[in-house]
């Protein structure tokens, strides 16, 4: 039990003007805004739109794979769907959803009135959106078809002569450049704009995750931007970076792109881990178990995860020593992730669990990612990786982690912070339906894919043959993906409906202990009238405790002797005195 602060500095109004009369239309205000909340909302809206596209693509691909030797969707269209799907799910949905919530919530959590570089934040969003539009505009002429990760030489001009491959490269390049700029802005804010007393050890886990995500994005995002630039030079200006005929190296692209995609994976995981660590204590009504151990584990996940990029490349022609290095990094992740799991269960244990939607989805995130990470643990052992990598078995593990992290974790965060963003709560009934659909869907899909992969089905195929024993597994996986899609749509519908018609809540509907709940819902443009001093890792709890004590020890003031006011000799002087008192 942290000791309540002895003294909280008295409230001083620091901002006098609340709002100017808007002179321009609302959409223009939003589009030209550098406010972290407006940008967060834009990021969230765009990420959810791309989530719908990703789900549509997934469902179409699974429709094609319901029966053997299916001809519902032509191979060309299947390859196009598959090539846009990977970039959409990870680059246009997974990372931006995390960034949207970080942008909205983290400055509030650390008691900031805004970000350090608002215009950089705005540029980051518009670059990301331009990237998404670049990728999808290719559907107007010729979509990319060089695979989820377009490895050269398949993605060079000889084998992919159409502009679709350029759309993929340019789209992903623009988006990751946006992420790097976002990370720079957020890191600067996290370093320079913390409330007095908000030292690193008192940072909420989500804000700490955001710091680490910032570092991961700066490193991995720059690498991917460089890789996309190099591939673009190869395609458009006769470069030979990846051309084996001219002394270039196709393996180089694999290193660079896998470094980024592994980084993206780490971003999704850190975001989910931070969210879970934030939600569990609030809904178990007790402080998080092992705050410092959680912070240390998150800090260990970031570099170890990045260093394990080569565990996607066990079959590539690289020296076996490098593979051992990748295996060591991947296995070392067991330690921080295991400690995190231990702490979360320790947080739940002995608590008073209120099974509201945020907790439900957070528990789903822990459970689902555990399935995926256990599978990843298996295939990080080199011989098992040689057998299972690039089969639907390994893909199922990826789905477990990404659905667990981005969908369960992302939705948990959405349910948790929705009242802060809109001032209204999302419906619990639809939340329950969505949760069970997601849980049943992801398991049905993954189990079907696991068995299909063990039976020998590789990833990304547009068809499989009769009599290979794959039909039943693919049918189960397809049905699972449809249920999963239903679960996603239920929560998105819930959000769309609740934004207008949800139950109105106050500033702090969940009895949170972090500073974002100290602001109004939705927060005013300047976030806080008064920025409180932070004395512990749970500042709002301290404030609540302080107010309670104040209330208990409060005594009615003694009656004041009434005195007749002296007749004012000079009215102007009296006015001056009054205004002087006001401004104090």
């Amino acid at each position, binding site marked *: 039990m942290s000791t309540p602060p002895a003294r909280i500095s008295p409230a001083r109004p620091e901002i006098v003007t609340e709002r100017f009369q808007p002179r321009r239309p609302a959409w223009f205000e939003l589009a030209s805004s550098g406010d972290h909340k407006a940008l967060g909302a834009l990021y969230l809206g765009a990420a959810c739109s791309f989530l719908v596209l990703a789900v549509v693509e997934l469902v179409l691909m699974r429709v094609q794979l319901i029966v053997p030797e299916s001809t519902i969707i032509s*191979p060309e269209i299947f*390859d196009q769907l*598959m090539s846009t799907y990977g970039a959409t799910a990870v680059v246009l949905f997974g990372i931006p959803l995390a960034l949207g919530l970080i942008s909205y919530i983290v400055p509030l959590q650390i008691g900031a009135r805004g970000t350090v570089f608002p215009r950089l934040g705005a540029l980051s969003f518009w670059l990301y959106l331009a990237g998404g539009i670049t990728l999808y505009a290719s559907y107007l002429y010729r979509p990319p*078809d060089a695979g*989820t990760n377009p*490895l050269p*030489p*398949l993605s060079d001009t000889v*084998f992919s002569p159409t502009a679709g491959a350029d759309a993929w490269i340019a789209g992903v390049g623009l988006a990751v450049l946006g992420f790097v700029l976002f990370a720079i802005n957020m890191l600067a804010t996290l370093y320079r704009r913390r409330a007095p007393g908000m030292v690193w050890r008192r940072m909420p886990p989500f804000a700490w995750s955001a710091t680490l995500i910032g570092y991961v994005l700066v490193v991995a995002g720059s690498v991917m931007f460089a890789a996309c630039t190099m591939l673009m030079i190869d395609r458009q200006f006769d470069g030979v970076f990846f051309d084996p005929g001219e002394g270039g190296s*196709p393996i180089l692209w694999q290193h660079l792109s896998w470094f980024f995609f592994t980084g993206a994976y780490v971003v999704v995981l850190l975001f989910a881990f931070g969210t879970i660590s934030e939600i569990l204590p609030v809904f178990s*009504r*007790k*402080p998080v*178990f092992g705050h410092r151990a959680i912070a240390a584990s998150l800090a260990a996940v970031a570099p170890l995860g990045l260093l394990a990029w080569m565990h996607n490349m066990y*079959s590539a*022609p690289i020296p076996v020593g490098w*593979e*051992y290095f990748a*295996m060591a990094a991947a*296995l*070392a992740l*067991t*330690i921080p992730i*295991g*400690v995190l799991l*231990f*702490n979360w*269960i*320790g*947080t*739940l*244990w*002995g608590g*008073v*669990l*209120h*099974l509201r939607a945020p907790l439900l989805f957070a*528990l789903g995130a*822990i459970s689902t990612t*555990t*399935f995926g990470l*256990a599978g990843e643990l298996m295939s990080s*052992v080199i*011989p*098992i990786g*040689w*057998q*299972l*990598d*690039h*089969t639907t078995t390994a893909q199922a593990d990826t789905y477990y982690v990404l659905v667990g992290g981005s969908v369960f974790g992302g939705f948990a965060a959405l349910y948790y912070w929705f009242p802060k963003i809109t001032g209204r709560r999302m419906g619990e009934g639809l939340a329950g339906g969505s949760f069970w659909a997601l849980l049943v869907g992801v398991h049905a899909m993954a189990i079907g894919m696991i*068995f299909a992969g*063990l*039976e*020998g*089905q*590789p990833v990304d*195929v*547009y068809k*499989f043959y009769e009599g290979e024993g794959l039909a039943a597994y693919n049918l189960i996986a397809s049905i699972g993906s449809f249920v999963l899609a239903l679960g996603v749509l239920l929560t998105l519908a819930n959000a769309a409906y609740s934004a207008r018609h949800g139950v109105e809540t106050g500033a702090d509907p969940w009895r949170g202990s972090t500073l974002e709940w100290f602001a109004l819902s939705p927060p005013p443009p300047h976030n806080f009238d008064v920025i409180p001093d932070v004395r512990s890792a749970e500042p709002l709890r301290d404030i609540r405790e302080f107010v309670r004590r104040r209330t208990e020890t409060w005594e009615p003031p003694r009656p004041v002797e009434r005195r007749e006011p002296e007749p004012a000799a000079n009215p102007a002087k009296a006015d001056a005195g009054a205004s002087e008192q006001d401004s104090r």
Partner: protein
Amino acid sequence: MTLAALVLAALPAIAHAVPLAPEDGASPNADDTTAIYWVMLVVAAVIVVAVNLALVAAVVRFRARRGREATRMRAGRRVHARVAALLGAVATAIFVAGVISTSQVRDVEPSGPEGLQAASTRTAQLGVSPPAGDGQPLSMLVSGQQWLWRYEYPDGTFSYYELVVPVDTTVMLELDSTDVVHRWWVPALGGKLDATPGRDNQTWFKAEEVGVYEGRSAQFSGPGYATMRARVRVVSVPEYEAWLDQQKADIQEAQDAVQERVQQLGGRSVAEAVQGAEQ
């Protein structure tokens, strides 16, 4: 309880019906892979079951009820250090097992007694490449191209789609690609390996049983990727030699036919002749 008993009773039936491990049993490297696979499957299953049981137990036991207060979990001092040390020990053990298993899988076994021997092979007399036999591996050049595999045998014979190898003989595969990255994978004969243009990559297998082993390419390589199959036909040594002779004769015949046609066309190459016909 009844439900649990039913599930337990159904488990062997389910385990029989579905694959729980990748295909194996045809080559020592695939068998070594399966051995470590079972160990890791148990580790992964323990983790998944433990975490999920703990979550369910927490929800059942500590769901909010009237009048109950939250109590902190009692844990000794330095509990996190102990948990981390335990996990570190497990990770280290897996790493060591992984390194041992990797070197076992990579370790090329000599050919067996039933395999191709130097004395019985006629490939040796051709002197095209080092002969197989007496434990020496048979070296094959496997070249990926959109969307089939081309196999080149030690004596220069080649075949498409299907690799024919003698039983109980160690076969070294030298992987290469003429266009984009492909990935060789015949699960019963071991793990995947990339065929990257401009880079050599090596793997091996030793088929212990006569039979046909199906494989698929496991790297997206363009529109025909799903149809890109790899098939290995394992035959007895005499059958292998007979097949090799037949294949060589077929190739010779086809080449002679082409040559004859070229002469008919007046010494021009086929390409020139085609150009001439078009004009």
